[in-house]
């Protein structure tokens, strides 16, 4: 599946949703002179509203969940997601911690069930942390320059507790309180 959504430069918004910094510095690393992806038109932007691609690093913690949802909806369509690192890909070692919601899959489940959106194209870059080369490879796959080599496989049972309506209602209340917007309802 190559992506023809973006024909020109990719602008990237980096969202640390509970990462240990390992992936963050590697993401930052690809913008420095040694790898320098800016010469390929890939640019790190400060605001999600300017971005085409949202780069998740780290598992999604309970504390960052409402903020991550807001940032996710702030990125205009069409958008793509790059999940960098083992934690972002599937929750990593934190899969059963009380303070963590899970990886990008768990995040998508919330978006799917409660906001009824079509999920964006997602590239997974596993590793702890992935090398800068691997991240560049992931972005090349996203652009359709390179072909995807591996397919996703599940090793875990899919049974995860369903979030209740109350949970989300509370979440929305909290977001409004913080001066947020009504997400998903226009």
């Amino acid at each position, binding site marked *: 599946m190559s992506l023809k959504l973006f024909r020109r430069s990719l602008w990237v918004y*980096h*969202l*640390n*949703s*509970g*990462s*240990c*910094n*390992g*992936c*963050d*510095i*590697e993401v*930052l*690393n690809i913008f*420095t*002179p*040694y790898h320098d992806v800016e010469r390929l038109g890939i640019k790190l932007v*400060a*605001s*999600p509203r300017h971005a085409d691609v949202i780069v998740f690093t*780290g*598992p999604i*913690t*309970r*504390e*960052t969940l409402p*903020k991550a949802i807001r*940032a996710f909806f702030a990125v205009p369509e069409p958008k793509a997601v790059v999940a960098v690192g083992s934690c972002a890909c599937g929750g990593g*070692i*934190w899969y*059963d*911690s*009380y*303070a*963590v919601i899970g990886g990008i899959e768990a995040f998508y489940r919330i978006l799917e069930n409660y906001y009824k959106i079509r999920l964006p194209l997602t590239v997974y870059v596993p590793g*702890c*942390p992935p*090398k800068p080369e691997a991240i560049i490879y992931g972005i090349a796959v996203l652009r359709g320059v390179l072909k995807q080599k591996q397919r996703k496989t599940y090793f875990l049972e899919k049974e995860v*507790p369903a*979030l*209740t309506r*109350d*949970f989300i209602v*509370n*979440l929305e*209340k*909290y977001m409004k*309180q913080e*001066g947020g917007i009504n997400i998903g309802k226009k």
Partner: protein
Amino acid sequence: MLTSITEILNLLKKYGKVEKIHKDTYVVEISPGKVRELCEILHWKLNGHFSVTVGSDERPVNGYFGVYHVFLLDKQKLSVIVHVKVNPVTLKIPSITPIIPGANWHEREAHDFFGIFFEEHPNLERLILPYDWPEGIHPLRKDVNVRELRYKLLKKETGLVVEKKAEEEYIVPIGPYHPALHEPEYFELYVEGEKIVDARYKGFHVHRGIEKVAEERLTINQVPFIAERICGICGYTHNVAYCQAVENAARIDVPLRAKYIRSILLEIERVHSHLLWFGVLFHLLGFDTGFMMTWLVREKIMDLAEILTGNRKNYGMNLVGGVRRDINEEKIKLSLETLDYVEYKLRKILDKMLKLKEITSRTKEIGLLSREEARKLSVVGPVARASGISTDVRRYHPYAAYSELEFKVPVYDAGDVYSRALVRYDEIFESISMLKQLLKNIPKGDLTAENVKVPEYRKGLGLTEAPRGENVHLVITGRENKVYRWRPRAPSYNNVPSTLVMLKGEKLADAPAIIASIDPCFSCTDHVVVIDVRTNVKQVLRLKEIARGK
């Protein structure tokens, strides 16, 4: 004034039962009534410093909750752990925050995780747990099962914890996502015109429940790997600190070669971390050339780490009792060559950059932290050394191979952003010189100790000097090859509260540089809490837009 170790031990014996747990480390078990008196003596009169408060649920072992206040006495090269048993019914002990303000977060964390009440604490509010966490559930208690908790929490209808809003002033929110920070944390700055009058911090977005995961699910030799994931920048020092804590508890002698390899990697990590910091500082001051140049040199150090360990970050080199991989002659030769190159390049780059007027005018006499404030908040590492406090775990509580090295501890008195930069500048070159000594003198021998056995319910304290300051791990070993209680305390945990002092009275445009000057590492710190503010300013408005100031 008391100086010798025997005098101090005699003093401690007056307060309670003294037990030596390992070299230079003593536990004093005292009754709750005497805590304040002893802590005041240890911190203020003996010139030690408060390091960490650890809560612990020991009901399955002895029927009590435990609170451990750890103090490091640099002059006497001594660590003293004050142990207080907390009655599991009343759950009350006196707070030490009125005496040592630096203990504020530590006690609030123990309150969050164990429900221990600290009497006369000025602000015993929630620090680490998320906004929707139900009252009365304390996750680190032993009768709380992680997985059950997770299911319960996701299904439970929970009340919202409404945050306090300050009333009448301009608020400039910085974060949780902000181009200057790279990590989610939330600063609220209260400004009057350009001047910051007050600041508030809400952190702990990255709290992942690492302690519970380690205590419930992992075995003793698996914990080093999760310890490394505490932080992606300075992970290896957490790894070493944990291993040292267990080794101390079990009285394992680590072979000298393993100690040397640990020191080598620790110093490599320090160089890369400080270079990263210089890059970020230059970037925040709008000097991107500096950022790019330092990170270009840093790439060499990352390559060096990859050659020595197999990974650029998260080396995975340690086990309890030693290291997992060896370093051969070829690698040593290559490392020495790289270090020569890096030293040459850095002298050239940093010497010039630190003299630039654009840099000095934005860093000198900005973000001041006086020696008294630093002592009060018990800050550590380069922040303390820039405020005139000579503290360095490598010098005063030597671990790994540091007792055999020659090195200087840079100390500056100005207490501003510039002196913090100078401390790190000196440290980079000290580290490079140390690395050369280590690589040239590395002895032959084994990599791991034989017959590693870890007895039950022993306490061990592991200290390392991370790039950001002293790093303390307290471990209580458990049954069946598990950890009973593990409390890592990252240096930023003590340093972050000091930013609120530094920010007051400064210009808004300097805020990012000041926040960055402590080299905050929020993923290390994130266990939990919020800081309260007292404001008396007028004029209202909330700027919904995030300040995009670089």
